């Protein structure tokens, strides 16, 4: 990434990640259809993973892989991007997919049992 106009990018990446997370949270809290709520949960996962990976970025850094070109040219470890957040996000993406799959299986069972996906009507059918 270049150094030109970098002052704007300081706030843009963090602001976008937080904004996407808040849009997903709004969808999960306000919408009435169960499928829209599950879509909102999936969007929250995406925004959160971007936020975690964006912390570990250094200006002018390179990917944390010791290849032949790196060993001949650079020879110093301090130019590498932080590898610890990347290892954590790798796990988080797979687990987010697992949670979405289980939630969708429950949505299919609820639709078969009640006949509707509206949470107002499902709450009324209890009595």
């Amino acid at each position, binding site marked *: *990434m*270049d150094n*030109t*106009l970098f002052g*704007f*990018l300081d706030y*843009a*990446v963090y602001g*976008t990640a937080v*904004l*996407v997370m808040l*849009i*997903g949270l*709004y*969808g999960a809290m306000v*919408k*009435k*259809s169960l*499928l*829209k709520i599950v*879509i*909102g949960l*999936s*969007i929250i996962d*995406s*925004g959160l*993973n*971007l936020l975690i*990976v*964006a912390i*570990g*970025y250094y200006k002018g*850094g*390179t*990917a*944390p*892989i010791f290849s032949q070109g790196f060993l001949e040219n650079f020879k110093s470890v301090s130019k590498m*991007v932080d590898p610890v957040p*990347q290892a954590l*996000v*790798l796990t988080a*993406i*797979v687990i987010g*997919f697992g949670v*979405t*799959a289980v939630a*969708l299986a429950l*949505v*299919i069972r609820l*639709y078969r049992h009640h*006949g*509707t*996906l*509206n949470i107002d*009507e499902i709450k009324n059918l209890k009595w």
Partner: protein
Amino acid sequence: MIYFILISVLLLLMIAASVYSIVQKDLLYAVMATGIISLILSILYYLLQAPDVALTEAAIGVALTTIIFVITIRNTVRMEDESDKKEKFKSAVK
């Protein structure tokens, strides 16, 4: 300069796709917008020097999540505010 334009366009597209997927009433289009969010996220991970994470997000977010959502829509409703019992009640009244 080229990086600045590229990153700004990608971030704006991501916000627009997420707003579209919450607001739209046709659920198939909302699921496609979620796939677009995952694709743009994968490009952003590559620009932030994280190639492992970009591979994982591109494979899981675009391919597998979209197919699971589409099969769920096939087995339940397609538009957001339709249901079985409402249609049966309306047709019985008429």
